[in-house]
C-alpha cells in the first residue's frame, strides 16, 4: 500500500505571481505541481507555510500550466501566506475532496465573500460546455467583493449580479434575498453555493422550496485533508468534509444535523455558527 497518493503527493512549489483582488484578498498563482492528475472545480489543497501552519485552500483558477488560490486574511496562517512574494516556496498536497458536478444548462452560482474563490474556477468549465451561467457575487461591502475578472466578461451566456449588505455596490440586499427574486424570475436547473454557512443554509431552504438541486461547498477545521484524522467529521453520520465533501448535495445537507447550526474548533469542541 503506497500512501503517498492518499496523502496528496506532498511537494514544494514557488509562487509565480500575486494579484491583489480587494482590500483583504490576494490571489497566489503557481505552476501545477502534479503532472498526472486533473483538478476538479470544488476540490482543495493543503498548503504548508513553513514555520507557521498547514491549511486547506480552495482552487480559484486552473489552466493547462498554472493554478491559483485566493487568500483572505483571517488568521496567522493566511497572514503569512499573504506576506509571501513571487519566488517564495509553499508546500502543497492534494487535490482533495470531491468537486462540483457540471451537468446543468442554467445554473445559478452564489458566492459570498471569499466563497467566490471555488466558484470562479467552476465558472470556467460551465461556460466552456455552453451553460447559461448566472453568477451572484455577494459581500458585506464593496471593498470585500471578490469580483475577479467577471466585470469584463462580455458574453451572451453569462450574467453577473452583485449584492452588498450595505448597498455600497449592486443591490442592497442579502445574497439569499436576491437569490429568491432571481429564482422567481428564472428557470434554473442547479444552484451552486459557497460562502458563510448561514447563507448556504438559507439557500438550502430556497432550493427545497423551488425544487432545484443545490450543491454547496462546506468548510470545517481540518488537519489531514485526506480522511484519517476525523477532525472535520460532521454529525450525525460522520461524513467528513475533506473526503466526502467539501461539496455536498441538498439531499446530504438535509441529513447533516450540524449544517447551519454549529461547527467545531481546533480542539474538537462544538462552537455555534
Amino acid at each position: 500500500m503506497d500512501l503517498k497518493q492518499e496523502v496528496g503527493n506532498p511537494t514544494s512549489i514557488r509562487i509565480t505571481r500575486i494579484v491583489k483582488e480587494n482590500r483583504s484578498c490576494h490571489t497566489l498563482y503557481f505552476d501545477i505541481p502534479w503532472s498526472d492528475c486533473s483538478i476538479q472545480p470544488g476540490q482543495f489543497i493543503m498548503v504548508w507555510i513553513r514555520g507557521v501552519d498547514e491549511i486547506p485552500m480552495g482552487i480559484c483558477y486552473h489552466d493547462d500550466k498554472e493554478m491559483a488560490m485566493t487568500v483572505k486574511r483571517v488568521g496567522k496562517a493566511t497572514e503569512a501566506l499573504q506576506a509571501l512574494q513571487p519566488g517564495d516556496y509553499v508546500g502543497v498536497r492534494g487535490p482533495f475532496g470531491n468537486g462540483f458536478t457540471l451537468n446543468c444548462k442554467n445554473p445559478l452560482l452564489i458566492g459570498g465573500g471569499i466563497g467566490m474563490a471555488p466558484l470562479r474556477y467552476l465558472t470556467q468549465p460551465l461556460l466552456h460546455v455552453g451553460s447559461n451561467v448566472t453568477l451572484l457575487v455577494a459581500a458585506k461591502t464593496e471593498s470585500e467583493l471578490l469580483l475577479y475578472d467577471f466585470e469584463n466578461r462580455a458574453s451572451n451566456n453569462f450574467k453577473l449580479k452583485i449584492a452588498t449588505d450595505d448597498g455600497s455596490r449592486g443591490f442592497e440586499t442579502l445574497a439569499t434575498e436576491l437569490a429568491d427574486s432571481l429564482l422567481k424570475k428564472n428557470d434554473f436547473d442547479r444552484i451552486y453555493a459557497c460562502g458563510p454557512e448561514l447563507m448556504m443554509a438559507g439557500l438550502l431552504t430556497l432550493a427545497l422550496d423551488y425544487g432545484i438541486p443545490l450543491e454547496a461547498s462546506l468548510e470545517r477545521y481540518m488537519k489531514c485533508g485526506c480522511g484519517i484524522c476525523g477532525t472535520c467529521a460532521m454529525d450525525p453520520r460522520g461524513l467528513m468534509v475533506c473526503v466526502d465533501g467539501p461539496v455536498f448535495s441538498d439531499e446530504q445537507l438535509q441529513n447533516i444535523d450540524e449544517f447551519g447550526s454549529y461547527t467545531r474548533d481546533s480542539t474538537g469542541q462544538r462552537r455555534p455558527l
Partner: protein
Amino acid sequence: MARVARKGADVVVTKSVGLEPRKGYPGPNITVSHSGLLNAVGLTNPGIDSFLDELRILKRHNIPFVISVFGRTEKEISQVARIAVEAEPSALELNLSCPHAEISQIAHSTKLTGDFVSAVKDTVSIPVFAKLTPNASDIVAVGLAAEEAGADAIVAINTVQGMKIDITQKAPVLANKVGGLSGPPIFPVAVRCIYDLYHAVSIPIIGVGGVSTWEDAVEMHLAGASAIQIGTATLRGLDVFADIQEGVEEYLVREGFSKTSEIVGLAGGN
C-alpha cells in the same frame, strides 16, 4: 466512530482524550515517507467532559468502544479514567507512549508504566489496556511491568519515532519536526514486538501497527495477537475491516481451524 462500526469493526477505539481541551500542534500534522504515514497531531482532543457527550451517542447505538486516555501524571490519568468510565466503555486503553508529546517517556520506563497502570487500576473496575511503544529499549520488560501492575491486556505497538525533511525547502515537514511513523513500514517491527511479548506475558496482546491486509492480520495473530487494531489502512477506505475479517475467516477454514484463538501465538510453537 459509528461509521467505522457500521463498516464492520467489532470494537472502536477512540482517539486519546485527556483532562482539558487541547489544540495539538500547528500543521503540517501529517506527511508521508517510504510508504508510511508520519503524524504529529499532538493529542488534539476536546477534553474528557465534552467527549462524554459524544460517547453517549455511541452507547445509544450499542457500539462496543474502548476509550484511549492519557495524562501527564498518575493523578491526572486516573482523573480522566474516573470520568471516562461514566460513558460505560468496554475498556480503557492507556496511551503511555505517544512518541511526539510530553507523555512519550512513560512506556520507556518499567517503573512509570507500572505506576500509571496501578493508579488507573485502583480507580476503575473495568479492563485496562496498556499501550506500549517500540521506541523503548526493552519493550518486553515494560510489558512485564504493565502485567505486574494489573493491566488486563497489552496493546502493541504505538507509532515509531521518525521524521521527514523536505529537500526543496530544506526543512522538517512536520511542524513538530518529529512524528510517529505508522502504516506498512512498521508492520515487521510490530510483529517482532508482539512475538517477544507473547513469550513473556500471560495477558492478551492486542496487535497494532501497519496491518492493511488479511495476510498481515493472520501473521500478527500467529505472532501472538489476540485481537487487531487498524488505523492507517483506513486511509484507503473503511472496507478494510470487512475485507480483513473475510480473508482471515477463509484462511481459518482453509487451514482447518474453527476460530481465531486457535492460531494466536502459533508461530512460536507453543
